[in-house]
Structure formats: C-alpha cells, structure tokens
C-alpha cells in the first residue's frame, strides 16, 4: 500500500500524535501535582509542619537523605507514623474509586455508574462488618477483612446487575434504582449487625461504614494490599483501554471488533469488586469520587480509556487527599467524616448529570 499520496512523513494524521503529547503533559503535571499535594497534606493538620521539613523527614526515611536530623521526634512521629500512611491511603482510595468508576461506566455504557451509587461499596461494608463481628472469612488470616469485603462487593454488584438487567436492556433508571435499593438494604444490614453484636467495636462505627474515614491508616498489611491491588487495577485498565472503548460503544460492536463482551465484563466486575473490597475495608465507604472524577478526566483528555484511566487515577488521588485535608481542618480539632465532603461536592454534580440526561432524552 502506497502512502506517498497521503503523507509526506512528518504529517500528524488524525492529530493522534498531538493528542498523545497533550496527554503526556497532563500526566506529568498531575504527577507533580500529586507529589506537592502529598507533601502539603502531610504537613497540614492540628500541628502544622512546614513542607520542607516534611520532605526532609520522608527523604530521610526512604533513602536516608538528609542524614542529619533537624526536626523534633514528635514531628517525625506525626509525619511518618500518622499522616503519611493516611495520605497514601487517601491517594490509593481516590485513584481506586476513580478508575473503578471509569470501568463501571464503560461496562454499563452509563455515565451515572459509580461504585457507591451502585451499592458495591455497601456490599463491601457488609462483608467487612461480618468479618469483624463474626469472624467471617477467618480462614484467610490477616486478609479476612479484605476477602470478606471483596465477596460482599462482588455479591452486591452481581445482584444489582441482575436486577437492572432483568427484562432486557440496562437503563439508567433501572440501574440507579436497583443500586440504591441494594445499597440501602446492605447498609441497613451492616448497621444492624454492628448494633446487634453489642460489641464495642469502637474504631469502626456505623459512621465509618456509611461515610468513610482515612483515620485508621497505618503502615500495615492492609495498606500494602491496597497498594498492590490498586496499582494492578490501574495498570490493567490502562492496558485494556481499547477494549474498554469498544465495550463502551456497544455489545455487538465489541464482539465484531474482537472482544468477547460477556467474559470481559465479568473480569471487570471481579476486578472492581476486589478493588472496592480492599478500599472499603481500609477506609470505609466514600461516595461520589467514582462518579465525578471520570467525567473530569474525559473533559481533560477526551474519551479513549488508555488516556482516561491514568488521568482519572491521578485526579482522584489528588482530590481525595484534599478532601481529607478539608475533613481534618474544617472543624479542627474535630474530624468530619470524609464522605460528607465528597458528597457535598459530588451530589450537585450528580444533579447536573441527571439534568443533562433528561435534556438529551437518554
């Protein structure tokens, strides 16, 4: 095939190269933004620590530089033991919920899909609560909580999709309603379990499962598991970006372009449930991140998932860490559940989306 007639060699056909450069710049900028966010967020709280000190403490712990200690032991404890794991968990949760939202929206071809709205978070909550209170999944040792949350999330998402699907095509309204119904039922179950057990499960209250908190973040196995699962999820979703693109167009199209829709969707559902299970067991149920962030990401870099997934991950990480800073600072020293902040920001956004759906008649 001769191409001489079309291109002289340097021409950027279809503008793809320019688009890639743009995405690359955004990724760089967002990565820088994430690092700055991390350092500033670790420094802010009831006891303020200047960002340069934060950076030095982290550097000292990670790579032994600077070797000379110029900070006080309490500062070091606050940064390294308390706030850094918290900020890292925030990043993981934000990134994870955002990419789970991206995957769900592609799966159901619906911009309203989000793990929280679809009741997947509450499934994970129920699973986790069952693990804590009754030792469900004890066979999995220290991973009992995550495993049980994962199973809860998987069960909830399967249930929601089966209900939404009964009688043919998955419509927005049916999906949302079944998500809300299953979500409420499971939240009620979780709350009931906690009250009925009568255990003084102090740290993880009903509030934790309903509105989330990063306050329990520690350097522990859970944080490590969350990091591995989420980085894996983000990587996988980026790599299968093209397949997400065709799935988002339609089942028949996906199939004629070489993607088996059913198998792929099931794989995505398991992956999303796994991520949400791990996240919820570490940080409770935080809403709206998975709804809002994918839209912002698409605004910035367009619709192809190979770009949307990494951008959404970085954006989600940044936004959630700032939401947590707000949660800690607004009524300091009292801490607001982070879910209140994300809901205050996300709910109006949902209303706008619903209005727009109405306008286009979808």
């Amino acid at each position: 095939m001769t191409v001489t007639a079309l291109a002289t060699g340097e021409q950027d056909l279809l503008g793809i190269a320019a688009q890639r450069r743009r995405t690359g710049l955004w990724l760089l900028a967002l990565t820088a933004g994430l690092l700055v966010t991390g350092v500033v967020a670790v420094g802010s709280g009831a006891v303020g620590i200047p960002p340069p000190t934060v950076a030095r403490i982290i550097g000292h712990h990670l790579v032994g530089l600077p070797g000379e200690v110029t900070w006080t032991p309490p500062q070091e404890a606050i940064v390294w033991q308390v706030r850094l794991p918290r900020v890292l968990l925030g990043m993981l949760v934000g990134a994870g919920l955002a990419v789970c939202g991206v995957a769900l929206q592609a799966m159901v071809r619906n911009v309203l899909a989000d793990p929280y709205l679809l009741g997947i978070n509450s499934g994970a909550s129920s699973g986790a609560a069952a693990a804590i209170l009754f030792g469900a999944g004890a066979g999995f040792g220290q991973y009992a909580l995550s495993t049980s949350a994962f199973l809860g999330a998987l069960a909830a998402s399967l249930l929601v999709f089966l209900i939404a699907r009964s009688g043919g095509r998955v419509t927005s309204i049916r999906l949302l309603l079944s998500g809300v119904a299953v979500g409420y039922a499971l939240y009620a179950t979780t709350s009931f379990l906690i009250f009925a057990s009568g255990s003084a499960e102090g740290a993880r209250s009903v509030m934790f499962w309903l509105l989330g908190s990063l306050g329990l973040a520690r350097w522990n196995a859970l944080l490590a598991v969350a990091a591995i699962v989420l980085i894996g999820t983000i990587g996988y979703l980026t790599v299968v970006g093209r397949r997400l693109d065709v799935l988002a167009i339609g089942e028949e199209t996906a199939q004629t372009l070489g993607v088996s829709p059913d198998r792929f969707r099931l794989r995505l559902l398991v992956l999303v449930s796994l991520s949400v299970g791990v996240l919820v067991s570490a940080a409770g149920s935080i809403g709206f991140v998975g709804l809002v962030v994918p839209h912002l990401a698409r605004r910035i870099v367009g619709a192809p998932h190979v770009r949307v997934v990494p951008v959404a991950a970085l954006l989600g990480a940044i936004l959630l860490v700032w939401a947590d800073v707000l949660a800690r600072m607004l009524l300091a020293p009292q801490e607001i559940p982070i879910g209140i902040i994300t809901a205050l920001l996300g709910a109006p956004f949902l209303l706008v989306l619903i209005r727009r759906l109405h306008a286009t008649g979808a």
Partner: protein
Amino acid sequence: MIQATGVSWRYDTNPVIDGVSVTARPGRVLGLIGPNGSGKTTLLRLLYGALRSRSGQVTVDGDELATLPAREAARRLAVVVQETGGETALTVAELVLLGRGPHLSTFQRTSRADHEIAARCLARVGAAHLGARAFAQLSGGERQRVLIARALAQQATHLLLDEPTNHLDIRYQHEILQLVRTLDTCCVVVLHDLNLAARYCDDLVLLGAGGVAAAGTTDEVLDPGVLEPVYGIGIQRLELDGAIHLLFHPIDQPAEERSAA
C-alpha cells in the same frame, strides 16, 4: 467465503430463520433481501456470530466460526451493525482507529501505519474532514459513513453490512454501495431497496416466511414471478442499458383477501 448450512433462530417460539443455508462467495457481493420481519438481520447476525444457531454451522474460509477466537474472527469479518454507538464521546478519528484493534496486540498502541489506514478509509467514504469531530454530534448519514470507514479500517477479508444505506441520502446510498462493489473482499449486505440490490449485488438471497424463498444470481432472483408473492406487490421489470430496474404497483383486486388471509 462464508458458508452457513441449516442455521435456525427463533425469538420465543416464533422461528424467524428455520434451517437456512447460504453461501457468500469470495470477491462477490451477496445481498440479503426480503420484506420486514423476514429475518434478514437475524440471518446476518447468524453469519457473523452475534447469534449462535443450535443447529447447523457457519464456516468462514473453511473454519467453523464458533471455534475461532474473537480477535481472529474480527480479522476475518468486519461488520457494520445498526447499533449506532451514539452516546460515545470518542472523536471520529478515534472511533475509526478502533477498527485496527484486532490487528494489534494488547500492549501495542496504534502506529503511523494504522493512522494512515484509518485516514485513507475515512477519505474513501468522503469523511476525511470529520476526523476531529465528536462522533455523537454527527448526522445519521455521516455516522453511517464513519462506521463503514471503521469496518474498512479493519481490513478483514469479509465485510458484512446491515442496511448500510439507512439514513443516507440518495447520492451516498449509491456511493457507499459503489464502494462496496469495488472492494475485492467478500461482501454480504442486507438491503431494503430492491433497485439498489439490482444494481450492486452479484448474488441475492430472498427471505420469505421462515426461510429462503429464492437464492441465486441477481438476475435469477429479481424475477417478478418470484418477488410478487413474497412482497405482496405488483412488480414490473425493465432492463435499460443492461441494468435491471423494478417498478412497483399495488395489486388491485386481491388486496383485501390477502390481508384477510
């Protein structure tokens, strides 16, 4: 070559396609025609594997379609379905590039060569100027041409189209089918318009109630004696400059008896 033998499909208990056999030969354009509800689209979907018949089998170049991996099937069969994908936020260029997917490994991103193929396919359907536009904002006719460009970009050995001339004005109806004619791939087209079928198809399969009412070359099938009972309309056939033209007129007397029966 696509060969279907004894395939069937039913919606609920109502058989639409019952033990049908068709063959699409290499380098030829096969048209599927028939009245509304005769199962043209259903038959096409059986041919590209969106529906799997319980009986019989479909083979593509000798291999059973059901046993081909999805990607391999997509390298052999490019399909333009009626599903519009109207809600996607992709641009036209991005959408057409998805046609290259079956040729790329999971970790491979589209290369310059892929971009060239996509650009050329867009140009072939007269949509080169639409590349940067959002697909969802196009008119019905523009969308149709872009979807055909995507199928062309797939560079499959077979092209299947479900009423590709829907939404197109008369000029593009002819341009698209002329384009289909010039491809040296094996094409299967579901067509509503018998005169388009007459002009652009080599072979035709006429579907009637439950199965094939007639199959053969275009010349053989477009016989008023064959068509009239299937469509329930009077047909006059003219040949101008060696091309077949059909004229239609209501059948006067038995119209009421027909609907009563």
